[in-house]
């Protein structure tokens, strides 16, 4: 039996086509992947991200525990700040990638992947028992009590203030939700109920992610659709969520990240604080860094017309004779109107500009390695 978010009925009323994702029945498409994609790039889109997991860690020992379990430096987080981080096993493989918010001085929110909620929880529970700082904190799974929406796109600032009135009460203190800066978190009020708002997202566009009690989710979603509609806001499904994040080169767990792929191989070294005295996986990652990588994540773009590259297609060198890796994510880019993808390849063939051949259904098509993001907004011309 697939799990459903509090917005399931609303998705059905909107005529969404549904898909299974990480054990959840989620909207794949409302009006069309390309149309929804362009709405986010040009105006605004709203995504149901209630399937994602929410863990809360509280108490004086929470910071030290999280710093031990996560790769980024938790001690650098001010109250009202968030950071992208990873949770690794002892081999340096990725158990999950997540966003960590310090919502109060001694309270942290971990937003984790839907498909990894159980694995993450089991892992963290095991670490609680074995933690060197095993006291003074409490871990709670709030996934079932919380819902979340992502509202993304250049037009969002035009109407977000009509939805969320007034200043924040906790987290980053601002007089207006639009004053939150990238990665900042604040607590606001929506119709008398608390609401967490972060200036974060998974699309490469400006926007907010809003965490709300499950019972309030539908009212918030409906109000958001109504408030945003005159500004071009559309509901967006997982189809466009995937094309948007792939254009940015953002990893998706199960594709670019897995328990046998390290953050260094995935090109996420900036989120790994190897200078921390200790965290789970540090020794393995240090050794890997000294030894050198055996494979590396790259982004590529097809150089000629082809079918879109897909996960597990072979990546060949420029001559097409030598297999150098595999595609981890691939799709047609609605913004660039060409095939794009992410791949894990031999580091000897991973430099920006390197020509590749992608084997798509037993035929080779030329591609080129690009610097991430694959899609960049064209500079706005003054007129």
């Amino acid at each position, binding site marked *: 039996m697939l799990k459903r978010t509090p917005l399931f009925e609303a998705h059905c009323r909107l005529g969404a086509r549904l898909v299974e994702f990480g054990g959840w029945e989620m909207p794949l498409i409302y009006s069309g992947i390309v149309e929804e994609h362009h709405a986010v790039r040009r105006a605004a889109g709203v995504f149901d991200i209630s399937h994602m997991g929410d863990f809360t860690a509280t108490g004086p020992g929470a910071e030290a525990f999280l710093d031990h379990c996560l790769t980024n430096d938790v001690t650098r987080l001010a109250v009202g700040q968030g950071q992208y981080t990873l949770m690794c096993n002892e081999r340096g493989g990725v158990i999950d990638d997540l966003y960590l918010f310090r919502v109060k001085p001694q309270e942290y929110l971990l937003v984790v992947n839907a498909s990894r909620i159980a694995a993450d929880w089991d892992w963290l529970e095991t670490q609680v028992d074995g933690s060197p700082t095993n006291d003074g904190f409490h871990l709670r799974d709030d996934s079932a009590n919380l819902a979340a929406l992502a509202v993304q796109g250049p037009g969002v600032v035009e109407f977000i203030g009509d939805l969320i009135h007034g200043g924040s009460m906790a987290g980053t203190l601002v007089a207006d939700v639009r004053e939150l800066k990238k990665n900042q978190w604040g607590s606001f009020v929506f119709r008398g109920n608390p609401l967490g708002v972060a200036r974060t997202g998974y699309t490469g566009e400006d926007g907010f992610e809003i965490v709300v009690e499950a019972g309030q989710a539908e009212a918030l979603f409906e109000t958001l659709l109504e408030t945003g509609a005159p500004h071009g806001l559309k509901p967006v499904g997982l189809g466009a969520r995937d094309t948007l994040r792939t254009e940015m080169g953002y990893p998706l767990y199960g594709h670019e990240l897995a328990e046998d792929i390290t953050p260094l191989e995935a090109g996420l070294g900036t989120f790994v604080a190897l200078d921390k005295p200790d965290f789970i996986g540090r020794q393995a990652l240090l050794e890997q860094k000294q030894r050198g990588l055996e494979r590396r994540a790259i982004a590529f773009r097809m150089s000629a017309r082809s*079918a879109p590259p897909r996960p597990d297609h072979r990546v060949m060198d420029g001559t097409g004779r030598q297999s150098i890796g595999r595609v981890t994510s691939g799709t047609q880019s609605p913004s660039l109107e060409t095939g794009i993808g992410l791949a894990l390849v031999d580091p000897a063939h991973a430099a920006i500009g390197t020509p590749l051949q992608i084997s798509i259904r037993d035929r080779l098509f030329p591609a080129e390695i690009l610097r991430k993001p694959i899609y960049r907004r064209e500079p706005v011309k003054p007129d």
Partner: protein
Amino acid sequence: MSEIPAGLKYAKSHEWVRVEGDTATIGITDHAQAELTDVVFVELPAKGRQLKAGESCAVVESVKTASDIYSPLSGEVVEVNEAVPENPALVNTEPFGGGWFFKLKLADPGELGALLDAEAYQAQIGG
């Protein structure tokens, strides 16, 4: 609500057939294009290829996924619509018009009897 023109024949695998003399024009239905969503790539069979009824002969890729297209009839490919690989969106915008795939010189017109008429196809897709 899908368009299902009367006068065409339909395969259960969502191809349509328009017969003129001993030649059949083949494409995919409005229902099929709506299910596939935004078509971004189409590969058609080569002219001169001999196809058997039910044989996989073309590929349609949407943003999300790849789908095989099956020949509803046996025969020789006598013409392919080069406009479709050039402009795959034609499959979405004109599935029964400019989005046709290829023409077959029929090997066995008797096979037409196994195809559905518009009414039967409508019933199949639950429209």
